[in-house]
């Protein structure tokens, strides 16, 4: 059953899919796109790939990519019933004290990252981040119970879902990059019902948070002619006033060496023609820090663009995006593919 973009995003964010443990997201996407895709495939990295063929001989292929993994944790040891853990991807340690997590056993169990009561903490310590080595997950179990229930190597995620904030924002964990996964899935759904000149591939890739590993393999396999990587980008916040991208100002289009100018320029032109809100997102380095890094240099090279969704508080359990920006990204991407020639 088809879902609206906002509802699809909420459903995707509710799933647990930390880097390397993304299967629940794959399964959801597979069920969701089965009715409209010509092919659904996976690979050794666990990437989700849906393909819509246009039926024209020697058609070119457009790859849309977003990643399905989220940052999280992995259990490394158990001490007195408390779980020792390390991070999966870039976690801000300052988010962790008194934090609720979901430990991904089958069935999952609830845990809290404990912290000392303020009554016994010297005031001078309260301004300092807690050494991550002193943080443990409390699952309310003895050593024996915890050992029986939680195998070493079990992953965990923030126990937050995704809900609405204000009049038109979403807030929650893993909007990086499930919001963008929702965007390309909705674009693909729309494109699948149209008469196109190109084949379209919707790739929701794994292990982006540890270095774009899934997309590297997926792009090689699919061998696209053009690609649009869709990821989140930092939006301005009161404590990061120098960030030029703003939440609510539309799709952020990447400009820089990682993005091919012809496709980037076309996206800006489309934004003007169709009155889709767009803003520039300059990325001066060779790497944009997204899957576009690896896709652009796949095989003999891929004409690549980066469309980004402005997001506040990246890699926290309270990431914030604008629904209007999500709609703009989806509209822009679909419009671009619709306009592609043979």
């Amino acid at each position, binding site marked *: 059953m088809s879902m609206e973009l906002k509802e699809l995003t909420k459903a995707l964010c509710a799933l647990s899919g930390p880097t390397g443990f993304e299967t629940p997201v794959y399964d959801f996407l597979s069920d969701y796109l089965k009715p409209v895709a010509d092919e659904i495939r996976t690979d050794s990295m666990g990437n989700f790939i849906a393909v819509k063929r246009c039926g024209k001989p020697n058609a070119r292929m457009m790859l849309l990519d977003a990643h399905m993994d989220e940052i999280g944790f992995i259990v490394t040891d158990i*001490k*007195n019933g*408390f779980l*020792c853990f390390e991070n999966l991807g*870039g*976690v*801000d*340690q*300052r*988010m962790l*004290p*008194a*934090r*609720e997590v979901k430990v991904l056993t089958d069935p999952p*169990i*609830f*845990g*809290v990252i*404990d*912290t*000392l*009561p*303020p*009554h*016994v*903490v010297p005031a001078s310590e*309260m*301004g*300092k*981040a*807690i050494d991550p080595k002193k943080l*443990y997950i*409390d*699952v*309310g*179990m*003895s050593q024996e*119970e915890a050992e029986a229930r939680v195998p070493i190597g079990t992953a965990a995620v923030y126990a*937050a879902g995704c*809900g*609405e*904030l*204000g009049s038109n*924002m979403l*807030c929650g964990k893993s909007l990086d990059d499930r919001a963008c996964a929702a965007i390309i899935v909705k674009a693909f759904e729309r494109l699948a019902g149209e008469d196109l000149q190109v084949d379209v591939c919707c790739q929701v890739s794994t292990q982006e948070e540890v270095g774009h590993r899934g997309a590297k393999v997926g792009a090689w396999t699919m061998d696209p002619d053009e690609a649009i990587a869709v990821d989140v980008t*930092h939006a301005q*916040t*009161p*404590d*990061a006033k120098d960030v030029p991208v703003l939440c*609510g100002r539309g799709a952020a289009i990447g400009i820089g060496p990682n993005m091919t100018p012809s496709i980037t320029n076309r996206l800006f032109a489309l934004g003007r023609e169709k009155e889709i809100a767009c803003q520039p997102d300059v990325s001066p380095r060779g790497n944009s*820090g997204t899957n576009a890094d690896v896709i652009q240099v796949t095989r003999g090279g891929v004409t690549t663009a980066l469309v980004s969704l402005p997001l*506040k*508080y*990246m*890699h*926290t*359990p*309270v990431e*914030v995006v604008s629904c209007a920006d999500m709609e703009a990204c989806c509209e822009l991407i679909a419009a671009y593919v619709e306009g592609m020639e043979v």
Partner: protein
Amino acid sequence: MMLDTLETLCCLSGVTGGEDEVRDYIMERVMPHADEIRTDPMGNLMVFKKGAVAPAQRVALCAHMDEVGLIITYITEDGYLRFDMAGGLDRRILLGKRVFIGPDRVPGVIGSKAVHLTTAEQRKVLPELKDMFIDIGAASREEAEQSIRPGMLASFDDAVVRFGSGYVKAKAIDDRTGCAVMVELLESDLPCDCWFIFTTQEEVGGRGASVAARNVEPDVTLILEGTTAADIAGVEGADRVCRLGQGVVIPYMDKSTIYDRELCATLGRLAEENGIPWQTKTRIAGGTDASAIQRSGTGVRVAALSVAVRNIHSPACVAKISECEDQCRLARLFLEEMAK
């Protein structure tokens, strides 16, 4: 059921100075069972219930209705909220937390710039409280002002979760566990006459209790509390203060009160006679309404009976359910003793 009452109470918002929601709920629950109900200008709720006997001494139980939280101080031009603490908090628990603001429970989150944008030095320290902010999804001050005013109180996310081997996670277990015990007792037949004092503003220094004690004038008061457990991984020996799973806590002293020795001994004896595990605190930490009550008027004999709470003063307080139930059992045994 004690646990259901506790969970319901923890979900209510009662940040220090704004305890109305908690008081209204308790009042409605206990009204049919009370012989007398009073309130006062501090917002305290004082409930009298007759028991099987009228002891020579006036006996009171006391728990506080308020919880730690935040108070909105300013709305920025771009629609973010500045705040201060209402009650004592370690600001390290604030970043990335959800809050509900004001009577309409406007959802907000305490944002912080992405880790990618910080330097290694910045990641080692916490932002100053004055630099923290709440995002309610408003794009401007005008938009924020439609639902928010400075002075509004914000409470933490109120999801209650039962987990592990008999544990519960919620905000405000300190001190809704004491409130829940008193509600349960009020709904039952009592061994002796008793005043139940539900206080306000404990978290800013027993302000409600100092007034309530004058209004009730008890001879003996038992404080029912949630107290500081530091028994987290990596902490050993006395530094744990008290430990979940080791029984209800009967402190002999904390930062603001030396408790009545005879009452402490009585509580310990009653626990042992009735197979209720108990412990005392291994560090002098924290404080309760006892300090305000003990030194009120001509003086009041005080004792405390607490539940060990991990992550106290955070959205993720953790307590052992059986110990909340034992707190209720032992409080009743205490009243039976007072009836003698």
